[in-house]
């Protein structure tokens, strides 16, 4: 990394982000050019924000900084066509909506994801964690990702949503392909044969998830059950029922957000704890550390690296003039290592406090499912290391190739029970 051209090329190359080495580039940007005009290989150039304060700025004003181009930098920085926008859920998906529409859709959902609703789920989540670890214990040699990290959100989220168990793996595959479309290893043969670009693939997989979820909504409108699909099916805004499309995209958000972010945070979190046996031991010995350990895993991993916003008016960020219509990308993965905010930002410390990371976003669009994700991890992390004090790598961790998702595709390990 010697000149700005190299920086720009790196920021627009998904392979560059597979691992943790990319942080060196952001350390330099935070110091030298924190609001950086990025002219890489993408279709569109964009502003790269690397400091915490600037990332906070764009997430704090959902009117000045619009979500309508999508919540994250799209593959190759290509804009969606109007037809793709429709299939992607723009205007219906809460992450692709702006105020005041966004509030009308999100407000009726908030209470169903609030801490007082999620906290009583602890016994169910604990049972799921035990089920996963019982199965892993019976085999000893496992893939940390497929057998543990991915299992947890699938069993929690798809069960809560009310998806029939025989459909879990199908839906899981659609979600992974949608979220990791830049990773060649996730695509199916039909995609490769058709030589689709990554964004076309992303839209197609999004549509698959939506079609499945719309089916769930139709079913629950006819026959309500005790599940989140029924909650979404019955959502209304001031007495006006949500359209099937709006309700369907609520379920889409639950599936995509619920499965992918947790899987990625858990995979990296377990690996980092494995590599720091003294911290893993402390976590087992001091259950009070579980909450702060989860926050540190979230900060450290930042399962979703960036947030895309479009300036809706001329403005200024960090002394740089931003013009109306320009793309502004907040690299929260960098914000979460900002020396101005975090002491020893490059140290993984499960007791870190305070830890005001931005991994769940901030403001209007902050992750609605965060209480569930936190509870899942709070139960899993200590329990894994209580049962298996030693976890030994049996191969190299394989990172997801993505400028947004930070996670592992595979990591073979041997579990050694106490």
């Amino acid at each position, binding site marked *: 990394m010697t000149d700005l051209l190299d920086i720009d090329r790196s920021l627009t190359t998904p392979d560059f982000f597979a691992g943790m080495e990319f942080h060196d580039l952001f350390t330099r940007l935070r110091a030298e050019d924190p609001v950086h005009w990025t002219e890489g290989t993408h279709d569109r150039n964009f502003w790269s924000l690397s400091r915490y304060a600037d990332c906070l700025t764009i997430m704090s004003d959902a009117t000045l900084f619009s979500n309508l181009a999508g919540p994250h930098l799209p593959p190759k920085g290509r804009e969606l066509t109007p037809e793709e926008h429709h299939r992607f859920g723009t205007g219906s998906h809460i992450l692709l909506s702006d105020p005041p529409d966004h509030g009308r859709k999100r407000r009726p959902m908030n*209470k*169903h*994801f*609030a*801490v*007082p*609703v999620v906290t009583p789920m602890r016994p169910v989540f604990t049972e799921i964690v035990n089920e996963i670890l019982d199965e892993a214990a019976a085999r000893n040699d496992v893939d940390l990702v497929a057998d543990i990290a991915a299992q947890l959100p699938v069993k929690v989220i798809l069960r809560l949503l009310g998806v029939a168990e025989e459909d879990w793996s199908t839906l899981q595959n659609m979600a992974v392909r949608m979220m990791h479309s830049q990773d060649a290893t996730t695509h199916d043969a039909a995609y490769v044969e058709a030589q689709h670009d990554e964004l076309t693939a992303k839209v197609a997989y999004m549509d698959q998830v939506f079609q499945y979820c719309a089916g769930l909504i139709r079913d629950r409108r006819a026959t309500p059950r005790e599940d989140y699909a029924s909650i979404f099916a019955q959502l209304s805004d001031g007495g006006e029922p949500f359209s099937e499309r709006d309700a369907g995209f609520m379920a889409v958000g639950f599936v995509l957000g619920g499965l992918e972010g947790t899987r990625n945070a858990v995979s990296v979190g377990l690996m980092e704890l494995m590599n720091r046996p003294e911290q893993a031991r402390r976590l087992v010995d001091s259950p009070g550390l579980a909450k702060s350990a989860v926050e540190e895993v979230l900060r450290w991993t930042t399962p979703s690296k960036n947030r895309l916003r479009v300036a809706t008016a001329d403005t200024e960020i960090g002394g740089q003039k931003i013009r109306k219509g320009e793309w502004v990308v907040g690299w929260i993965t960098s914000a979460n290592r900002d020396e101005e905010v975090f002491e020893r930002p490059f140290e993984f410390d499960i007791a870190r406090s305070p830890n005001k990371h931005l991994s769940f976003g901030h403001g209007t669009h902050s992750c609605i499912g965060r209480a569930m994700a936190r509870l899942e991890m709070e139960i899993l992390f200590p329990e894994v290391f209580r049962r298996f004090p030693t976890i030994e790598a049996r191969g190299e961790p394989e990172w997801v190739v993505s400028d947004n998702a930070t996670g592992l595709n595979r990591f073979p390990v041997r579990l050694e029970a106490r």
Partner: protein
Amino acid sequence: MKTVTFVVDGVDRVLDATGHANLMQVAVENDIPTIEGECGGDMTCGTCHVYLESTPEGYDAPRGADEEDMLEVVEAPTEASRLACQLPVDESVGGLRLRVPT
């Protein structure tokens, strides 16, 4: 002084609310138990539930529809239930008294 009283386990905690936007912030700043204010006041987390015991004259902070919505899911709601983030610190807040669920 904008003095407010938080009743915690039957014990009065008298706090100065000056400099804060709302009573959730006052509680968090003073480590009042059970009040987390995780969402920062967006009414998305439901972690600042309190029971309003008395309000000073002129203090006007009616419940909004979104607050009513969230109060449906908090533990043991009553007529006196409020989200502390929706109780602003203003000129008339002095003397307000509320109880924290325990």
